[in-house]
């Protein structure tokens, strides 16, 4: 036990004992994570900018734009023409573009199926929801147009057949009938003139825009904010990069044959392994604590979950990534390449684990693959804690993280084979 502590303490001293080490391993992470939190923490609350061009002269185009504006999810910016819209999307002035073609209203009324165009440079959550929302409005508008169209034909037939037909229809309608325009609850345009379906449609849209039937949202803030996932994601990515550097100190020991010398002392090999891991884990813990405290008290960022649980989540993740880093380092004997490969493992696992975007938008097989990535479980644990779940639910992600850590650390301790210098290749 004494030996383990000596080795661990020595590693800690070597890493953060000097002023340089303190700046590189403790102060820099704090500053960088603050910048990350500052940049991404607010990003989730931003409205997505959507460019649009409305070339439609009729009322329908304006209605679509008004409805999108009403959702409150988009900041809409108008472009004069379709060409300008496309140029805007290309220059990334907005996340997506929406184009209502010229003559949209008239071709709707003519019974054709005009299409709204969506432009995107890259897929994002905003562009997906925009497409769904616009599609929904478009479908409804087609139904309305068909209703207006058939009302027109009924009316036309009615006038042709004489008043009896019209009376039959109006009696069938029972209540407020727009047929004669006398009862006129809404004072709509005269439906008798089949020539004015345009005005009818406008009147319907004006009715619809009042949203008599709608919904009220009661939000008890039970779900984690979008910003939390992003902040956690980038924090995880950063921690993983930091761990790589502390594992590379252990690798240096082996390359410089310091490990061999330690081995010649009365120390068992498991003591070397445990001591080294304990040392770099301690450094990691200090990093996590500093980062969390800076975020909470300097930036005044509300993590939305108890600090100690967040700390535990990040510490557990730290342990897993230590195992991962040392496993990779053990497989690749050349420390130069190990650093590079680690950096390249980091990005794909972060993508897969949902650090950059919600897992739920990925296809099913990718979601299944995400189960093998520790980031997914860490983010899930943070989410669960943020929604107020207790340990009855939190145990699962923690257990998975613990298991991953145990397996990877066991494999990873292979790098501590002190008899091999391992600089070849």
């Amino acid at each position, binding site marked *: 036990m004494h030996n383990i502590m000596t080795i661990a303490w020595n590693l800690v001293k070597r890493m953060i004992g000097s002023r340089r080490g303190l700046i590189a391993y403790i102060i820099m992470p704090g500053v960088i994570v603050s910048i990350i939190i500052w940049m991404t923490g607010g990003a989730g609350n931003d409205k997505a900018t959507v460019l649009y061009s409305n070339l439609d002269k009729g009322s329908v185009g304006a209605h679509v734009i008004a409805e999108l504006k009403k959702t409150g999810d988009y900041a809409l910016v108008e472009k004069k023409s379709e060409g300008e819209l496309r140029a805007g999307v290309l220059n990334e002035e907005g996340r997506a573009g929406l184009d209502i073609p010229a003559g949209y209203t008239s071709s709707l009324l003519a019974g054709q199926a005009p299409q709204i165009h969506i432009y995107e440079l890259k897929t994002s959550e905003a562009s997906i929801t925009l497409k769904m929302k616009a599609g929904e409005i478009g479908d409804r508008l087609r139904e309305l147009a068909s209703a207006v169209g058939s*009302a027109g034909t009924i009316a036309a037939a009615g006038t042709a057949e004489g008043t009896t037909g019209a009376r039959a229809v109006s009696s069938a309608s029972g209540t407020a009938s727009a047929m004669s325009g006398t009862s006129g609850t809404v004072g709509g345009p005269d439906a008798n003139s089949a020539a004015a379906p345009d005005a009818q449609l406008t009147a319907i849209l004006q009715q619809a825009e009042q949203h008599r039937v709608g919904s009220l*949202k009661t939000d008890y803030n039970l779900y984690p904010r979008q910003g939390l996932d992003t902040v956690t994601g980038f924090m995880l990515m950063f921690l993983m990069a930091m761990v790589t550097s502390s594992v590379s100190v252990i690798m240096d020991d082996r390359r410089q044959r310091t490990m061999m010398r330690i081995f010649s002392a009365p120390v068992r090999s498991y003591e070397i392994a445990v001591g080294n891991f304990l040392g770099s884990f301690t450094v990691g813990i200090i990093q996590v604590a500093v980062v969390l405290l800076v975020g909470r008290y300097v930036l005044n960022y509300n993590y939305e979950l108890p600090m100690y649980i967040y700390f535990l989540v990040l510490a557990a993740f730290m342990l897993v990534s230590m195992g991962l880093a040392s496993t990779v380092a053990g497989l690749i004997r050349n420390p130069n390449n190990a650093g590079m490969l680690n950096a390249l493992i980091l990005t794909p696992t972060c993508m897969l684990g949902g650090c950059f975007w919600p897992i739920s938008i990925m296809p099913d097989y990718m979601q299944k693959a995400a189960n093998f990535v520790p980031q997914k479980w860490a983010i899930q644990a943070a989410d669960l804690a943020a929604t107020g779940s207790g340990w009855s639910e939190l145990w699962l992600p923690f257990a998975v993280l613990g298991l991953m850590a145990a397996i990877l650390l066991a494999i990873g301790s292979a790098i501590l084979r002190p008899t091999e210098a391992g600089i070849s290749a």
Partner: protein
Amino acid sequence: MTNIWTIAAYELRRLFRSRTMLINLFLLPILLIFLLGSALSGVIGEGKDRTIHPFRVGIVDAAANPSERSQMIGSFLKSPGVAEIITPEIADSREAAVSGVRSGEYGYAVIVPAGFDQDVQSGQQAKLEYILGKDRSDNMVAATVFDNFLSKINYTQAAALTLGPQAISAMLEPGQASPSVVLGKLNEGGQSYTASQFYAASMLMMFLLLCGQMVITSLYSEKDNHTLFRIGSMPVKGSELFRGKMLGIGIVSVLQCAAIIFATHFLFGVYWGNRPGILALLCLLMILASLTLSVTIAMFAQTAASARSISSGLTVVMTFISGGMAPLPDSWVNTGGAFSINHWGLRGVLRMMLESPLSQISGSLAMLSLICLVLLGLAFFSYRKVGYHA
């Protein structure tokens, strides 16, 4: 000249002998592009490979007795399309529903006011109350399902008020087969552009910037292995050594770039545009920028490890702020992003993919050339200032 070729050939042999290098250079970029492309472009598909797990929604009907409960909501909940997504469960009261949502029993709750159907039919205000649950995506799904339902009623009501009730039956006609919203083509002609192409381009830029890592490794390994002494005892000029190394690593980078472009083209169908010459020029400029940037870093950094971490850090940060990794706030891409090398390369490549006219591409090319010139000057200056000694 022979010296330069000897050094370059050795550099090539050294790089190709290392299995890790080969994996790094050729396999990982393709893997990353695959991950990004399939993670994000599958979304826009028809949702075939997505299975939705139905979640429970608490429904409260405030009507006094069961016979007055809303028929509309009842039949809507029974419709097969809805049953696939949500599992409705009747809750007794609003309080019960709220506590159910809080405890996680329900993913979402909907409160139906008393007399909902009558209000709708008589053209009165009729509003459902949603109670948001614990899962963000479940909330979104449930809100979409019910909002679509309500918007349909809303339009129907509006139509009925204007045209009379017979309009309702006319509205129930089956819709046309073609979707009412389509993804438009960003380009005038040529092949269609998909979102995964964006990530292919952004990853290509990132890996071209990572080429510089090889320079750092190579420069420092001569020092660390004390082989720089031996080279120094040969009739080799310092500039020859440098040019040889740059040439060797440049050739590998060009091969890597070609491998990424061809592999993504044939494996994932990424279309790289109709101007292969300009694409090659742009990639060469990116490689030059990456090499000179790394030389500058290597000159000033103390150890190989710190040089490598500075350069890989810079690469990741630049890819990130150019918007190539994760969505950023919209205002960022054109302000902060412009300070990255990736931004200009990415712009150029994207415009080529879209077959834009040359005038739109030349701006990025000019900017990249300028960056290369500045970095080349910096590298030259720092080499003269610091030098490359054992």
